[in-house]
């Protein structure tokens, strides 16, 4: 590999900035995001819709189309910068070294081709020697019953959960190092959601495939991800081991998110009032300040950087408040 990676991360995102040119000016959808994903790791990205998480996910595959534009930053996959690759190299990386599972499996699969044909096409694009046999194996791997029959069927003949399994099989087809799953369970029933998440976790464990799981719900991520990144208004406001972030959220936004989702043993706090700020242009200070109940004066003027929380390694938050876990809302010590 040319250019030895500065860290041992498989996927290394640095200062990623993405803007959208629109009728109402330039929207800064992602503003200087940096994070790593280690080989075999399962990382969750959480945030409200519009926080930049899906655009970031797509940027990982170099899939940001006009009017979106990546204005700054690097995305290194095993040391190779995805953003500076020529079209040919990029094509050879997509689906081969990094694959994506989309939110809506109905529209993300082509209605006029059979499941088998679509799986085979994806493998052919990367010169797989025996795509037919592999297709069958893949459907077995994602636990689709009667796989031989399913291969000959069209997407509309499958249930929603089954379609998403096909999408995951497609992602697995060329044995990539990373799978990016963008809201893979949002379009599914609750019971099916759990099964799909379970499948993703198993793939991560059994095959050591790194997974980036994107969701608007902390709840989805908390059960499966080892580490979590909380996005707000185009930035990471908190990151750390899932258990740590969940038990002792350091950023007021994370705390509010946890409060919004009622869980057993956790009393619901007031739901989050207001809505995220416009990012055209972004506010000068902390983007969460207008909705923050613990706002300080400097929050409105200065945007805090991600900083280690309480000396806990790996846990960081972007907040001026020195929040200690004991002040966690809704839980009596």
């Amino acid at each position, binding site marked *: 590999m040319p250019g030895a990676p500065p860290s041992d991360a498989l996927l290394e995102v640095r200062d990623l900035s993405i803007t959208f040119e629109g009728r109402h000016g330039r929207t800064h959808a992602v503003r200087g995001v940096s994070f790593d994903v280690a080989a075999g790791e399962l990382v969750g990205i959480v945030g409200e819709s519009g*926080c930049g998480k899906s655009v970031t996910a797509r940027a990982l595959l170099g899939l940001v189309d006009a009017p979106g534009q990546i204005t700054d930053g690097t995305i290194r996959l095993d040391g190779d910068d995805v953003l500076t690759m020529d079209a040919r190299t990029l094509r050879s990386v997509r689906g081969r070294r990094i694959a994506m599972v989309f939110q809506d499996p109905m529209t993300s699969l082509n209605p006029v081709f059979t499941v088998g044909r679509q799986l085979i096409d994806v493998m052919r694009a990367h010169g797989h020697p025996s795509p037919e046999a592999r297709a069958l194996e893949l459907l077995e791997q994602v636990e689709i019953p009667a796989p031989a029959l399913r291969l000959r069927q069209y997407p509309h003949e499958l249930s929603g959960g089954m379609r998403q399994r096909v999408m995951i099989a497609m992602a697995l087809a060329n044995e990539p190092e990373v799978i990016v799953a963008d809201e893979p369970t949002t379009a599914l029933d609750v019971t099916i959601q759990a099964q799909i998440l379970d499948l993703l976790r198993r793939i991560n464990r059994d095959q050591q495939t790194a997974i980036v799981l994107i969701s608007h719900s902390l709840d989805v991520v908390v059960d499966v991800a080892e580490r979590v990144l909380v996005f707000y208004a185009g930035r990471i406001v908190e990151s750390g081991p899932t258990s740590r972030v969940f038990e002792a959220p350091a950023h007021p936004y994370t705390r509010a998110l946890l409060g919004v989702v009622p869980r057993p043993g956790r009393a619901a706090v007031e739901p989050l009032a207001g809505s995220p700020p416009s990012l055209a242009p972004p506010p000068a200070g902390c983007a969460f300040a207008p909705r923050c109940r613990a706002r300080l004066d400097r929050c409105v003027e200065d945007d805090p950087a991600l900083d280690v929380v309480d000396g806990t390694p790996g846990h960081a938050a972007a907040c001026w408040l020195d929040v200690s876990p004991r002040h966690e809302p809704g839980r009596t010590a």
Partner: protein
Amino acid sequence: MTTPPADLPTEATAALAAPLPEAELSAAELPTAGLPEAGPRRSHGRGRAVLRRLFRSKLSGAGVLVLAVVVVAVTVGPFVWTVDPNEQDLLARSANPSAEHPLGTDSLGRDVLSRVLHGGRASLSIALVAVAVSTTIGGSIGLVAGFVRGVTDSILMRLMDVLLALPSLLLALLVSATLGPSVRNTVIAVVLPSIPADARMVRSVVLSVRERDFVLAARASGVRPWRIMVRHVLANCLGTVLVMASVSLGFVLLIVAGLGFLGLGVPPPDAEWGAMLSDASTYIVSRPVVVLAPGLAIFLTALAANLTGDALRDALDPRA
């Protein structure tokens, strides 16, 4: 989703007929503030916004402009260029362009410029009247069929199907040949095949509008059916009708010219673009410019009408 286009001319307004879907934003994950709202009644600034959008594209602007120029030329032109289109200058037959005859003369020594201007008057006014009549008749049929539904709808639409069973120019040819060539008969011949397309399109809009919430709300609150039809349904069809009319203007113009060309339109000696082409085609070898002038006039006008229709559709469609 891939649905087959229901009808050729329907394409022009399918976008308007369909209920407006939610703006697709998931792709960009942008904040949703400041997006146009798709509502039944438009705000006051809407007219101006439509006008602005009409001239947004150079192509559309050019279409509107050319159409305006043609209309002004054939309306005002004959007052400025007062040469009699039927006067035969026997000393200058098949003459080349000169100061006296800027586009030359035809084989009978008639001034080509004057004939193009007067011919345009005939072609355009026939087309405009035909469009107005067919839009009114077809639109009414569609409105009634779509609003009343049931047996009335079935009978009206089967009637329309029979009219649609023949290509428009063919039907126009039959009608015109049967009734004999005259201005009035040309209008009838052109109107008849245009009606079903208009009726179908308006009906499809009505069918979609009548299921919209504000119509349901009006029905639920006991507003009289005819009032709903006029106030809500008709009001929401107007955009479609406007687009439909401008697109079919180009189409109708071509049929009128086609009839004239085949000698089944406006009878001689009156000038009409299609008929002029037919006269001229016999001496295309010696006088190509005589063929070029009326043909180009038909072409440019039809093109302008089509561009205008397209521009109107885009301008009236809030998604564009």
